[in-house]
């Protein structure tokens, strides 16, 4: 590809990345200038690559929240129970901010993320419930109509003794910063009370959203 400089001389460049190079028709004394344009262009391209590699090495975006103190839920007063986490065990990319919310992990980079949640419920009248990973408005005022589950456990039903230990997870896209964050909710399917013993929510980056070329 040829482009014309302000002074009228032509500079030939590679097609994809527009790296300038000297051709046989150029004057020998033009070489230093073309050379410096080449190294400047190369410098910019390599800097972008360095930034990308630096994100992977030594690590990727990851966060893990935990809760290990009991919390009693009364299903007669609230239908959906968002889990309020207590501790940030891991966060490599400032995705967990308890000053803003104790319910969510919010990625800063668009991409696909692996999300996994595990919940243990102790004694209670409820032995029939679902746990969902959600991406959206997870707050204390969450209702059944204000969330859209990404992954939900099979409803646990039975008479076996507590604890009831369930998990939900999968790979989900984070396509816009408008989402509030990845969170976890418990949806009791029977009325009564129950106590949550342990909950964890972990998120890590898997890939960018862009489609790979051929």
């Amino acid at each position: 590809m040829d482009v014309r400089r302000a002074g009228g001389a032509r500079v030939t460049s590679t097609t994809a990345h527009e790296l300038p190079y000297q051709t046989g028709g150029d004057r020998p004394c033009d070489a230093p200038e073309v050379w410096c344009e080449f190294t400047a262009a190369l410098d910019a391209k390599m800097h972008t690559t360095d930034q990308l590699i630096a994100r992977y090495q030594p690590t990727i975006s990851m966060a893990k929240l935990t809760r290990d103190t009991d919390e009693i839920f009364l299903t007669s007063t609230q239908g959906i129970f968002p889990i309020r986490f207590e501790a940030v065990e891991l966060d490599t990319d400032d995705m967990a901010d308890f000053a803003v919310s104790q319910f969510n992990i919010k990625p800063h980079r668009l991409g696909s993320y692996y999300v996994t949640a595990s919940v243990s419920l102790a004694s209670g009248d409820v032995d029939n419930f679902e746990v969902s990973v959600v991406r959206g408005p997870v707050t204390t005022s969450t209702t059944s109509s204000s969330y859209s589950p990404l992954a939900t456990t099979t409803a646990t039903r039975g008479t076996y003794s507590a604890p009831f230990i369930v998990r939900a997870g999968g790979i989900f896209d984070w396509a816009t910063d408008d989402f509030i964050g990845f969170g976890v909710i418990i949806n009791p399917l029977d009325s009564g009370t129950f106590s949550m013993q342990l909950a964890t929510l972990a998120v890590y980056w898997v890939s960018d959203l862009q489609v790979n070329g051929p």
Partner: protein
Amino acid sequence: MILSPTQQLPCPSPEDYAALALYMQRLAERFEAKIVAERALITDFATQPAGLWANTGALTASNGSPISAIDITTAIFTNTPSRLFVGFSTLPNGGVFPEAGVYHVGWNVTMQELGGVTAGSFRQITFQIQQATASGTPLVLQDMSRKVIASTLATERFGNDGLVVVGESTRALVGARIEFLHDNVASQVRINAGNLRGWYRRLGSTAQIEVS
């Protein structure tokens, strides 16, 4: 000589055009060193320690009688030689995890009743990544246990996973605690060889990302 702003690539000053051969050599050497370094970083990232192991022998449990201290030592795949997915009793030198960092760890199981199925009975796998402590009470780094109700098909398949942070100074003390328990009165329940599988993959270090 002029150097580019971030990569320090050399280019000649206008009066140096007679020395282009020397500049080309310097640029080539500089560029080669950069490519070698970047390739090493990418290769390191793309070949994180990973492995998949399974139980070697069948595990048959009676109602209410747990099978404890299960080791899963048959390697189906691993790029970290000499590693086993084991508990403290057989913890190898250096621990289960080959280096410090954050690991995605998980397991899955298929189990079958040898006879009848008791309605409402449970099947439980306790699967914890633990770290030995001086007090003797292990520290649970990640509890991935699961407890499910038995289906009427007399075969249960389930699993769990989570993230585990392994420190460099404590890595040699980290192992897995695996137990199998059920309350199926009607018959024993068996996990055949190869049907209890544990796996991990290192995701990276706990270092904070600083680039945008």
